[in-house]
C-alpha cells in the first residue's frame, strides 16, 4: 500500500501534517510519541518580531469546534532559529514546514528569507489568513492583488517551495488561489479558520477578549472540503487540505476533493495522539475503500 505523496518536489512518507498553531515546534509532542512517523508538521506561526499575542480569554468552545484568538504568539524568527529549531532537530529528522506571518510585505519577505536558509526547513507556508491580528495576516489574504504581492516578494528572496495559506473568509477563494499561483506560489493550503464569535450569556459580553476569533474543528470540515474541491480544480499546483480533519476517513475525503496532503489542527488539541492514530489507521481505511495508492485518489471526486 502506498501512502507516499510528493509535496512540491519533496516526498512525504504519508500525507498527514499537524497544522500550525496546534503542534508548537514539535518537541513537546515528541515526548508523547515519535513524531518522525508524521509526513511533516507545520510549526507555530512565526513573525519577524516576538509577539505575546492577544489578551485572554483566547479560547471559546463551540458545538463541534472551538474559537481561538491567540494572535500569533511566537518568540520571533531569530529565537525560532537559535532556540526552537535546534530543540526540534534532536527529535525530528524530516524537513519541517515553516509557517510565517507578517504585518507588511517586507516582514513576510524578511522572515521567509531567514527561514529559507535553515536546512531543517523544507517548505515555507505563508499565512496570509490569520483572522486574529489587526493590520496583518488575513488582510493580505482577502484581496487577490495583496496576496499576489506577498507571494512575489517571498518568492524573490527564497529558494524553497512556498505554500500560501488562504483564508475562507472571502467571497471567491478560487480567484485568490489563482492570483497566488500566477505570482509564483508552489502550493496552496486551505482553509485557515473561519471568523466566529461567542457571547457569554451571564456576562452579556463576548467570551473572547479579542471579541472575534478563528472557528475551527469538525464543524467546518464540509466548508473546507468544498473550498479544496473548488481550488484544486482551478490551479495546477499542489493543494494541502485542512479544516476540521479528525480521522483517516477525513484525510481520504480531503484527498478525493483534490488535496495532495492534509493538515490536522483543532483535533490535536483534544487528542494529542490523534495524528499518530490517523497515520496508523490510514492503511486500514485505504483497504476499506479499495485504495492501493493514495496518489490515485487525489482529486478523485472531480469531473464526477
Amino acid at each position: 500500500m502506498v501512502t507516499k505523496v510528493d509535496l512540491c518536489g519533496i516526498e512525504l512518507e504519508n500525507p498527514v501534517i499537524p497544522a500550525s498553531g496546534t503542534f508548537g515546534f514539535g518537541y513537546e509532542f515528541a515526548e508523547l510519541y515519535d513524531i518522525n512517523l508524521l509526513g511533516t508538521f507545520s510549526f507555530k506561526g512565526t513573525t519577524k518580531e516576538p509577539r505575546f499575542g492577544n489578551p485572554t480569554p483566547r479560547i471559546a468552545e463551540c458545538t463541534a469546534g472551538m474559537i481561538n484568538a491567540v494572535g500569533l504568539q511566537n518568540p520571533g524568527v531569530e529565537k525560532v532559529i537559535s532556540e526552537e529549531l535546534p530543540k526540534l532537530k534532536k527529535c525530528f529528522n524530516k524537513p519541517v514546514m515553516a509557517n510565517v506571518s507578517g504585518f507588511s510585505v517586507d516582514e513576510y519577505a524578511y522572515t521567509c528569507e531567514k527561514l529559507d536558509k535553515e536546512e531543517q526547513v523544507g517548505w515555507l507556508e505563508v499565512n496570509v489568513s490569520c483572522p486574529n491580528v489587526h493590520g496583518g495576516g488575513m488582510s493580505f489574504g482577502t484581496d487577490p492583488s495583496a496576496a499576489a504581492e506577498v507571494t512575489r516578494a517571498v518568492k524573490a528572496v527564497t529558494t524553497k517551495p512556498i505554500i500560501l495559506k488562504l483564508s475562507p473568509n472571502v467571497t471567491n477563494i478560487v480567484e485568490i488561489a489563482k492570483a497566488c499561483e500566477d505570482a509564483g506560489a508552489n502550493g496552496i493550503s486551505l482553509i485557515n479558520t473561519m471568523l466566529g464569535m461567542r457571547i457569554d450569556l451571564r456576562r452579556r459580553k463576548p467570551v473572547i477578549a479579542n471579541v472575534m476569533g478563528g472557528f475551527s474543528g469538525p464543524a467546518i470540515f464540509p466548508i473546507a472540503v468544498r473550498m479544496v474541491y473548488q481550488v484544486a480544480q482551478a490551479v495546477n499546483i499542489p493543494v494541502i487540505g485542512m479544516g476540521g480533519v479528525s480521522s483517516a476517513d477525513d484525510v481520504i475525503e480531503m484527498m478525493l476533493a483534490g488535496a495532495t496532503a492534509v493538515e490536522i489542527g483543532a483535533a490535536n488539541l483534544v487528542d494529542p495522539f490523534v495524528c499518530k492514530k490517523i497515520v496508523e489507521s490510514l492503511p486500514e481505511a485505504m483497504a476499506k475503500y479499495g485504495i492501493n495508492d493514495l496518489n490515485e485518489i487525489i482529486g478523485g471526486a472531480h469531473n464526477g
Partner: protein
Amino acid sequence: MNQGVMKIIGNKKIADRTYCMTLEGDTSAITKPGQFVNIQLEGFFLRRPISVCDCEDGKLTIIYKVVGNGTQKMSEMAIGEKLDVLSGLGNGYDTAKSGDSPVLIGGGVGVPPMYMLCKKLISEGKNVKVILGFNCESEIFGVDEFKSLGAEVFVATVDGSVGTKGFVTDVLNDLDYTYFYTCGPMLMFTAIERVAKTSGQYSFEERMGCGFGACMGCSCKTKYGNKRICKDGPVLEREEIIW
C-alpha cells in the same frame, strides 16, 4: 502526561452545586499536588480541566462545581461510566519551599487541590494551617477531611454563617506562617497579595484549549517571561507574578 480511560466509582453531591467524583485507572502520571486532569465529555468539543483533589493507588478524586453545561453533564454521570482523561497536567505545587509551618488558603472550588497538598506537607512533617473560604454555609465542604489529616483548620464565610465572618484574609492577618499556598478566585488572590507576609505560590485558572501546552490559549506574562498556565503553571510563585 498520560491519556487513559478511567471508570467512575463515585460521584456524589457534597455541597451546593459541588460534587465529588472518584475515578479508577492509571494515575501514574500524577506526581505532584496542584496538578490537574483534562476530561473529555461526550457532546463537548473541548475537554474540562479539573484540579486533582487526591490521588493514590490508581484512584483519583476530583471535586468540581457545576458552572456550565459540561460540569452539569459530569454531575449526571453514573458509577461505572467511563471517561477519557489526560492526567498529570501542569507543574503542581513545590513543597520544598514551605518552611516548617505553611498556610494553605483555598477559596470555593479552589479548596480541592489544597487537600493533596496538605497531605504531602504533613507527610513531610510540617505543621500545616488551612484557611477555607466560602460564601455561605451551604457551600462548605472538606473541613473534617483537612482536620483528619492533622491540619489546623479555619473557616471564613462572607455571610458569617460559619467561622469568621468575612474573607480568608481576615483569618490570614492573625496567623503566623512560613510560606503560603493558595488556589481560588482572582479577587481572593489580589486580597492575599496585599496582606501576605511571606513568599508563596498561587494556582491560576484560565480558559484552556488543549491543557498540555500546544495551543497557547492560556498564556500569561510573568517577570520570568511568557508562561502557559496549563503547562508552565498553573502554579506560579509570588515573586514572578505580574498583577
